[in-house]
């Protein structure tokens, strides 16, 4: 495979929709580009556009970031093929079960618009590889500065702010003559309007190995709702890092959700081949105005009747056009992040049941009478049930929450003195991945050591989805090496757990 030219991108998306007619809707975008190209997107999912929430992915916004289109197409093709063949999907060290793929296809809509700026891509792939903007014949425009969010930056930001945007038509970040002046941005706007159940938006860019979330105009804060992009009294002070004159308001729950989703993507990328992306607020890259993700998230504030859309930008790789052999690896990294994102978006609600399976080693003196705790979601649970546990060679199962078998549970079967109380909030499911998951051992005396063979934790959301829940595990390799972990005062007291679905 090689990088696709613009005709191939359009044909690929059309052919995917044709090949999977019961799972896809081909979307023809309403506006042709300046050079007369018609763009296409595809909506993937068994449910209709009004029946479920939707994720929008865009690629190819900046012409020179070629691989974004291939990421979109490969991701779409993988989901569809895995679903119809009932296959699991593997990206390097990251595996998604067939149930998880089924869950995505049957419970979500995903709109994939792989090449927002085909004129620019064509120019970049034939004449000027470093071309970034569209091909407006009057003055080419940076599509990702042309959205209607603080677009008029000279009047809405501090004069001292280093906002990466320009009124100069020769600049690579020229924002255009007016918001939504360009057909490419209006096509994306049309998708937001036409599909009101879009709740998440990911704009795929390159480069820097970053996972960015709202906002991009100034640092986030969750304490003063009046300090926001609509408040003109802050127009002369916006965009300066490290000051208190202005910071952009984002509700704490929204921020938690965005950071959690970005962290889940990062963990999923790491699992493929060990590459660690940086999760940060878009502003930390540099101050911006007129960007797609901030426009998406701002819609709910400027027009409360429109649904809230959480915005993310993926900046993949370390160069705009890596050799194709490396681009293939990057496609696997980002596809893994996108599948995880799809699973996690529908993982809202409360973690109402945690199942922990612990295998004690089958070795002399492997067992213990010490205390064992599970750390998850930012707190700890004592793993303690009636009868013997953590004995040599045994597997113990502990259930926390619904159907609890641990001691000191309340009348509803939930542990006492925990947040798992009837009609009260428990651990928000989508924050589970924010905190480390671990097993902590408290020996009964200074000579007490415990040999751990295997740990498996499954967390299920109150919504019952995604199928299989969220999994954590520890020491898979030790099954191969027969080299279990000893815990004790001298050996150490913690086992950190990895997230993944390997043992589900």
């Amino acid at each position, binding site marked *: 495979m090689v*990088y696709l030219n613009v005709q191939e991108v359009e044909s690929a998306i059309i052919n995917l929709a044709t090949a999977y007619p019961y799972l896809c809707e081909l979307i023809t975008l309403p506006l042709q580009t300046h050079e007369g190209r018609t763009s296409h997107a595809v909506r993937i999912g068994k449910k209709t556009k009004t029946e479920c929430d939707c994720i929008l992915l865009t690629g190819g916004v900046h012409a020179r970031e070629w691989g974004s289109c291939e990421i979109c197409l490969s991701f779409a093709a993988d989901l569809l093929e895995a679903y119809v063949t009932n*296959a699991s*999907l*593997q990206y390097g060290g990251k595996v998604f079960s067939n149930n998880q793929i089924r869950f995505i296809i049957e419970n979500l809509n995903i709109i994939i618009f792989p090449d927002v700026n085909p004129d620019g891509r064509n120019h970049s792939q034939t004449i000027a590889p470093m071309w970034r903007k569209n091909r407006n014949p009057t003055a080419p425009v940076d599509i990702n500065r042309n959205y209607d969010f603080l677009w008029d930056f000279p009047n809405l930001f501090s004069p001292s702010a280093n906002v990466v945007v320009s009124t100069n038509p020769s600049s690579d970040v020229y924002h255009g003559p007016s918001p939504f002046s360009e057909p490419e941005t209006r096509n994306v706007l049309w998708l937001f309007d036409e599909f009101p159940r879009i709740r998440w938006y990911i704009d795929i860019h390159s480069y820097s190995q970053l996972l960015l979330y709202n906002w991009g105009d100034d640092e986030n804060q969750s304490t003063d709702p009046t300090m926001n992009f609509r408040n003109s009294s802050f127009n002369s002070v916006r965009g300066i890092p490290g000051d208190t004159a202005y910071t952009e308001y984002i509700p704490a729950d929204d921020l938690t959700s965005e950071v959690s989703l970005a962290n889940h993507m990062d963990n999923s990328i790491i699992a493929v081949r060990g590459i660690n992306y940086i999760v940060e607020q878009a502003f930390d890259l540099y101050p911006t105005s007129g960007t797609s993700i901030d426009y998406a998230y701002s819609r709910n504030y400027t027009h409360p009747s429109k649904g809230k859309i959480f915005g993310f930008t993926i900046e993949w790789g370390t160069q705009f056009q890596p050799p194709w052999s490396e681009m293939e690896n990057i496609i696997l990294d980002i596809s893994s992040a996108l599948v995880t994102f799809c699973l996690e978006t529908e993982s809202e609600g409360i973690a109402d049941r945690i199942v922990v399976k612990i295998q004690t080693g089958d070795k002399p003196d492997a067992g213990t009478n010490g205390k064992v705790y599970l750390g998850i979601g930012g707190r700890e649970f004592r793993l303690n049930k009636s009868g013997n546990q953590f004995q040599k060679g045994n597997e113990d199962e502990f259930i926390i929450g619904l159907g609890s078998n641990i001691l000191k549970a309340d009348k509803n079967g939930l542990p006492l003195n925990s947040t798992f109380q009837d009609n009260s909030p428990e651990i928000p499911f989508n924050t589970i991945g924010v905190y480390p998951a671990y097993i902590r051992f408290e020996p009964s005396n200074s000579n007490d050591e415990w040999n751990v063979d295997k740990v498996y934790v499954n967390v299920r959301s109150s919504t019952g989805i995604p199928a299989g829940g969220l999994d954590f595990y520890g020491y898979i390799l030790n099954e191969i090496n027969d080299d279990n972990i000893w815990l004790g005062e001298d050996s150490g007291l913690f086992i950190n757990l990895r997230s993944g679905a390997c043992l589900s």
Partner: protein
Amino acid sequence: MDKVFKITASSENADLLHNLIREQNLDIGCTGGITSKDNKFSIDIYASEKEVTKLQEKVLAEGLTKKISLETTDITDHLSDRLKEVGTGNKYEGANEVPHGLGKKVKQ
């Protein structure tokens, strides 16, 4: 194809880099912004031969050569090689040519 250069501009003073970028209208979009490491700030810039010369002259004229370092790499050949990796024709011409993703599908 005209020559294209990647410049890594570095300085111990981030403001100097900000000023340089602002005054020279340089291409820094999506290149990671100004990053810091070991008390040194740096940023990736993409430029034509003419822009590189102009940038070097400015740094020289303003006596900043000891305060801003410019590491310039000609990436023209790299880009030429990438252009050769772009598809020709249309491999998906015809409705039967269905794309496949790069993920490994493992049948149950």
